[in-house]
């Protein structure tokens, strides 16, 4: 039977969880078997309304349902946020390369996340934690604007109990007394971590401005360009390297990425524009 690569498979919206004022996590149950590797993305469609790319925030080992964490920021996400659960949505994919997790075996993995950029990083972190003995060290540096903007608030207490995982968090600003961790931009957390640069990789995901300065800081610390992994999600549309929307230089982010090393991007003028 003919199956168009552009036709989504149905997925029921099982549950909606409020993360922050503007961010919700949507739990989807695909009606067909659907597997992804961490860091790959899906196209999520609201039939008759539109389609947009999201990187699942759930563990790839959990296959019956997929979580996507979405910030309300445009036409489609506004509609998505109005859903209560039970609705039938569409998904296509998975697309792109994902994180080369096996390459990180035996290394220290530094995760640098900002805001809703924690979504793909949660999936990545869960992938690491499922096989934590394979990594020398796992460090999560996570920054948000305010304490309210932290996503997965309920998970951090759990994660903080894991002895193989070191967590550092920052907020840009907050009233006195509500936050007993770091206050400042997420990049300042990097001054506090101790890493062996010869055996460490950094995984970065967040808003473009944070990616830009995060990369700069990692380079300053001494990370090699080939050891900095960046999630370059843009407005991927077809997911198949054809429609052109996500082109960045000669790369098609949807098929050559979305995960790139800084080595691959450093010659492109202003890749975080």
């Amino acid at each position, binding site marked *: 039977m*003919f199956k*168009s*690569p*552009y*036709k*989504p498979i149905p997925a029921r919206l099982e549950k909606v969880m409020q993360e922050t004022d503007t961010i919700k996590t949507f739990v989807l149950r695909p009606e067909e078997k659907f597997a992804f590797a961490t860091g790959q993305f899906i196209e999520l*469609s*609201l*039939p*008759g*309304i*539109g*389609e*947009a790319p999201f990187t699942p925030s759930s563990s790839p080992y959990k296959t019956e349902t997929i979580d996507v964490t979405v*910030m309300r*920021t*445009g*036409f*489609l*996400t506004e509609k998505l946020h109005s859903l209560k659960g039970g609705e039938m949505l*569409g998904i296509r994919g998975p*697309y792109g390369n994902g994180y080369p997790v096996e390459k990180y075996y035996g290394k220290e993995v530094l995760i640098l996340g900002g805001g809703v950029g924690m979504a793909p990083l949660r999936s990545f972190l869960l992938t690491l934690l499922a096989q934590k003995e394979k990594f020398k060290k796992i460090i999560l540096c996570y920054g948000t604007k305010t304490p309210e903007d932290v996503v997965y608030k309920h998970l951090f207490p759990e994660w903080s109990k894991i002895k193989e995982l070191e967590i550092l968090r920052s907020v840009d600003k907050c009233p006195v007394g509500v936050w007993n961790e770091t206050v400042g931009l997420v990049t300042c957390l990097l001054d506090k971590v101790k890493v062996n640069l010869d055996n460490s990789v950094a995984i970065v995901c967040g808003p*473009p401005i944070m990616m830009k300065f995060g990369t700069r800081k990692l380079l300053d610390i001494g990370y090699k360009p080939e050891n900095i992994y960046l999630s370059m999600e*843009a*407005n991927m*549309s*077809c*997911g*198949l*390297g*054809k*429609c*052109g*929307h996500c*082109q*960045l*230089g*000669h790369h098609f982010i949807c*098929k050559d990425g979305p995960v790139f090393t800084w080595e691959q991007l450093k010659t492109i*003028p*202003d890749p975080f*524009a």
Partner: protein
Amino acid sequence: MVKDMSLYYINKNNWQEFIKALLKSFTAYGLTAQGEHLSWKNISEDDIPNIVTGRYRATKPVKGFLFPAKEEVTSEPDAKKLLIIGAKACDLCHLPTTDAIFLKGVVCDPYYETKRKNTVIISSDCDAYRPSCFCTLMEGKPFPAAGFDLNLTTLENGYLVETGTAAGEELIKLQNSLFEKPSDAQLSAREKMRKEMIEKVKKNNAEFSWENPRAIVGATVASPLWEEDIAKTCVECDACRFVCGTCYCFLLAETARNWEKIRTWDSCQSEGYGRVAGGANPRKTKGERLRNLYQCKLVWRPENFGLYACTGCGRCIEVCQGKIDIRKSIQKLGKK
């Protein structure tokens, strides 16, 4: 008939018979003249005597037959047999770009593939040119070297027909008696015409001295000229993108019918093309967008596919309301 010959001669009467027979099994498009412009027409038997075989390229490229401006992309593709008569060398040179995008990569696009497989192309040599023609600046020639099933060279009373594929050869075999072995005089007439035509197109572009546009555009990414000069008169109408034979960008959209999607051509020159939800836009200005376009055609596609995604057809020059001429732009950028 000599077997395995790649060149034949057909006189004008027999040519009409040949096409008449093909109309039984193909939906055919040929060129009709409206003043100086040539446009594609779905032809019937009555049109055959009037279709233009020589001259220059049509106002629209061949791409649209394989990748229509608007197309439904969720149901099974329609396998209609299509015959295109009168494509030019620059049109054929567009197809390796759209082939590389749609036929290769992560998946083969079934909509493009179906049309491509079911399309037979009879191209023809240019025997005239438009002021915007510049194939000779883009490593091209005004007559096809590849990419056709059959190619025509217009002679006084008939055509020289060259076969380019087994499918083309097969069409000739089916109506073998209409074709003859070409004479030496006819063959040398073709050579002479072709040489003259190259010179004419070169003369048309005599004011342009640039070579290696990839190096020129690649080296001028930071030039203030993009903003201050080259893109200044752009009115953001997108016409240049919609007449381009290598532009493959499209917008996927939902229809009101659940689970059905359509795609429409999209243009990197419109402000919203690269914009993401929340408003961030990697290419906010006209200069950034036009530079991105030139890089796409002249730097990145050579890097990806080993070819220029510009064949010098000049359509973008002809339709531009802001009189932006890619030849002049490269000339300016190339000046030290």
